[in-house]
């Protein structure tokens, strides 16, 4: 709660900058319109105009705010025009993808840490896999999954997983290798099995890395879900809103979807942060 004042200050500052930027970016359009009508604008008219355009380059905060209010509070949540509905659609794919990505990432990391064959051969390809632009192959993935009868949530979640498992692998490999030599030696003296060493030593010591990876992973997951929403025919979800907004030049709609997505990501990152604090505290590490 003591965060409120700093956050509000920063947000306030941001909004001021935003209004300023809106004037700067939208001014040309306002002047053009005026020129066509053979008028010249006073400064206050210019400002007023830049903050109220229909299709601004950068919508003013209150325009986005109004749109958000309009599409979240004023609409039934089950309505297709409700942003809450679309956020939910995106969230479910993100969440599923994130869970799968975390599981896959952790499993791979465990494999890499415990198995030299995997360490030597898989890691470089995991990296290479991440350089493939998903936007290029997402449609193919969707098509292939469709062909084998998978559609709906799962294809999106798989793309989301594809993006989120990587930060988890990188972080967890490091984390699982972070116990120092003495701690590992101790485990050796007790002839702990690989599994026990993992469970009682490597995993607990990897926790700080784990949570950091999760935060990055969940953000990546969201990007994946949104990307995945486009080739599914852009039917529903924040990705579809972004696209539709872009095809009809509805900047206000784009921005409200964008802010909603960011809010979703921030909420998830915040939640993970909370779990992190609680866990590390219980583990006596914070």
């Amino acid at each position, binding site marked *: 709660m003591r965060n409120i004042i700093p956050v509000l200050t920063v947000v306030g500052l941001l909004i001021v900058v935003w209004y300023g930027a809106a004037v700067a970016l939208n001014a040309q359009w306002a002047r053009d319109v005026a020129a066509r009508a053979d008028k010249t604008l006073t400064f206050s008219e210019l400002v007023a105009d830049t903050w109220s355009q229909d299709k601004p380059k950068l919508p003013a905060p209150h325009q986005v705010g109004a749109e958000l209010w309009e599409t979240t509070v004023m609409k039934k949540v089950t309505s297709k025009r409700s942003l809450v509905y679309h956020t939910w659609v995106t969230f479910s794919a993100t969440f599923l993808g994130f869970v799968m990505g975390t599981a896959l990432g952790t499993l791979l990391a465990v494999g890499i840490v415990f198995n030299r064959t995997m360490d030597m051969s898989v890691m470089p390809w995991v990296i290479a896999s991440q350089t493939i632009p998903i936007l290029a192959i997402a449609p193919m993935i969707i098509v292939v999954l469709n062909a084998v009868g998978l559609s709906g949530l799962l294809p999106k979640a798989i793309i989301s997983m594809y993006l989120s498992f990587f930060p988890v692998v990188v972080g967890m490999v490091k984390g699982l290798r972070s116990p120092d030599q003495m701690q590992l030696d101790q485990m050796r003296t*007790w002839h702990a099995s690989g599994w026990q060493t993992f469970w009682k030593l490597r995993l607990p010591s990897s926790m700080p890395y784990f949570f950091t990876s999760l935060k990055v992973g969940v953000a990546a997951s969201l990007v994946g879900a949104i990307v995945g929403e486009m080739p599914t025919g852009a039917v529903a979800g924040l990705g579809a809103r972004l696209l539709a907004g872009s095809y009809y030049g509805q900047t206000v709609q784009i921005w409200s979807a964008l802010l909603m997505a960011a809010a979703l990501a921030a909420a998830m990152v915040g939640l993970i942060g909370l779990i992190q604090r609680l866990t590390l505290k219980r583990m006596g590490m914070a």
Partner: protein
Amino acid sequence: MNDSQSVISASNLDLTFQTNDGPVHALKDVNLEIHKGDFVSFIGPSGCGKTTFLRVMADLEQPTGGQVTINGVSPEEARKSRAYGYVFQAAGLYPWRTIGGNIRLPLEIMGIPRAEQAERVQRVLELVELSGFEKKFPWQLSGGMQQRASIARALSFDADILLMDEPFGALDEIVRDHLNEQLLKLWARTEKTIAFVTHSIPEAVYLSTKIVVMSPRPGRIADVIESPLPRERPLEIRETPEFLEIAHRVREGLRAGHGDD
């Protein structure tokens, strides 16, 4: 001593570390027999290879020459059959486990039933005088208390061989005396074989049936002293002439080791 069955035997042991500025010869041509029920102390200047030797016995370090057998088998097999308990030079407690949890750790790993775990934890905590600290986290304990917790952990699972690397280094004289006595009692009662690194000459003499004096660079055995003291040792024994004589001999050995440095 009283039992000629060889528990630990090292022959022509050699160990060289490769480091960024050249090799370090940590152990050279080390030969030693430890019999069942022996209490062997290792003493020697810092850096002479005591820890390294203990680590070789525990299969934590691979010798570059010669060999070691524990109960007639390789250190690896001995380790796998959980033949020994090891107390490290630094406490090395897991920060995310309480003291109790740390002591329970090897028990969990060895699959000892839960009820027995609790009971054993209580027993060893008492032994090292830490009852009541079970729920504290390591960083809430003083250095000496951490060290004692780590001793408790090694004792908890009752291995036949104990390898202890300066377990009492961070303890005051009174606790140290107390733990020395406790350790001797435990040893007498259970017939364990103990390899014990220490820097204290009186401690080495008081505890051991055999004292191994080592000298550094390269680490090797300078002297092996069989103690003529009886197995039954009240604290007062430390004032007897026999005791002082052995202590003197150890000190001479040590000094010699330092001399050729």
